[in-house]
């Protein structure tokens, strides 16, 4: 059975004349432990799908099923024990006046954990930061280190699905390699399921087993990574995307 399935999902913003249909009729399913990619240009709706799943885009219809449970419009607290999201910009996603300890401690507290101290230590070790970063503030961290903190925060709830919204596009390639390796390790250790949004086909090809190509709010093609590597795309838009990705 699939860990996450999306059937005929529509997401829109605004109403009347201002209504923008950001996602139309999107359907895909992700198996447990699988890593699924969403690619497409900005405005194609790929991040909006993640937002709808995680409850940040409240105006949607269709069917979203997480671990066998169909989601209603609101999100219950236990949902966030299963699904967590990592955002694109590590500079914007951490509070500038909260230390790493504060960020992780608060998250753990909100999820109802008791042994917060031991868990903060464990989380920092898990993401390869270690103790010496525990009482630092975001401005004392590099971009890669911040993204590690953001990943640690997502892992705090011990989720089973991570939604990754362009997790490395704000980082240097050498740092990107470190973060992607970290994500690969974490998925193997914790048996996580990933849904990863990226505009970089090479990154998606490296991380994901299957991917959906989006254009103008619709999924135009779902393909596996072997077809991607062999550049066997069926839809003309996917073919164009492959041509455009320089050297990938």
């Amino acid at each position, binding site marked *: 059975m699939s860990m996450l399935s999306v059937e005929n999902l529509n997401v829109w913003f605004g109403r009347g004349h201002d209504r923008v249909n950001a996602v139309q009729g999107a359907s895909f399913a992700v198996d447990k432990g699988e890593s699924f990619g969403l690619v497409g*240009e*900005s*405005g194609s709706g790929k991040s909006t799908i993640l937002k709808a799943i995680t409850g940040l885009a409240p105006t949607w219809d269709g069917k979203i099923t997480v671990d066998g449970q169909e989601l209603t419009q609101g999100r219950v607290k236990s949902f966030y024990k299963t699904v967590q999201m990592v955002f694109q910009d590590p500079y914007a996603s951490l509070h500038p006046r909260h230390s790493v300890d504060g960020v992780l401690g608060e998250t753990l507290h909100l999820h109802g954990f008791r042994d917060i101290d031991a868990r903060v230590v464990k989380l920092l070790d898990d993401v390869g930061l270690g103790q010496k970063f525990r009482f630092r503030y975001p401005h004392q961290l590099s*971009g890669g280190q911040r993204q590690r903190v953001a990943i640690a925060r997502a892992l705090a709830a011990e989720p089973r699905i991570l939604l990754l919204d362009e997790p490395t596009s704000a980082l*240097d*390639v*050498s*740092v*990107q*390699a*470190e973060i*992607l*390796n970290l994500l*690969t390790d974490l998925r193997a250790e914790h048996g996580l399921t990933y849904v990863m949004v990226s*505009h*970089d*086909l*090479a*990154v998606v*090809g*490296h*991380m994901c087993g299957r991917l959906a190509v989006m254009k103008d709010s619709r999924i135009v093609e779902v393909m596996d*990574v072997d077809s*991607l*590597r062999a*550049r066997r795309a069926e839809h003309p838009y996917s073919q*164009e*995307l492959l041509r*455009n*990705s*320089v*050297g*990938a």
Partner: protein
Amino acid sequence: MTLLDVENLWVKFPTRQGVFDAVRGVSFTLGKERLGIVGESGSGKSMTGRAILRLIRPPGIVEADHIALEGRDLMQISEKEMRGVRGQQISMVMQDPKFSLNPVMTIGDQLVEAYRLAHKSGRSNARQASIAALESVSIRDPERVMRAYPHEMSGGMGQRIMIAMMLIPGPQILIADEPTSALDVSVQRQVLSIMDDLVTSRGMGLIFISHDLNLVADFCDRVLIMYAGRVVEVCDADKLHQATHPYTRGLLNSLPRLDQPRGKLDVLKRDPAWSDAPSVSGRA
């Protein structure tokens, strides 16, 4: 022909811990070509671009034996004369159009202002020229765009508008600092080819600053690879993938590739010797 000749450029920032050298002894020449400068964040590539335009604010210090623009040393001229160089002779396109366009002025007003500053012409004349400039960067419906505000534009359109605005004074050199990093791959191609066409047809020199090795290899003629404020390697762009310096190799190997699946990506191991070695000259 050499448009720009930079010799022994240093950018220094005094800090409490001593002087920090952001750029250390960089030399290069620029002809009518596309020169790429690649490196990671903090390697000094943007500082090099800014130092050429003397855009480093105090307490930052720029030192160079010379920065010669067609024989005229930009290090020697006054701030007032420098204002005639910025935009007029050397233009710069920054990374994110959201921050480089004025959010409370319409696109049209900004273009007209730029045109009138450069050409001392009337309003209606400037308006016609601005519409033509928008057309030259493949913007459909330029009349509507003229009336629009920057937040109504997509990133790709914003960046094309910036390019149009920067080219209005007819500069000899365009410095593009990560002009496409905020854009989608499909739009990236389009913006690059527009920039390429304009630069080539006007016989301009282009300094293209980017962190994206593949993009630079594909788009530029010559590449300087910077690390810790120094140029560690200079090569022809089409031979970038045969680069020999361990830093360049490390960067190339840390990129995931569709045609070479790997379980783990190579992580760059930094060698202190890379930052100690003298800067390689980028003279053509």
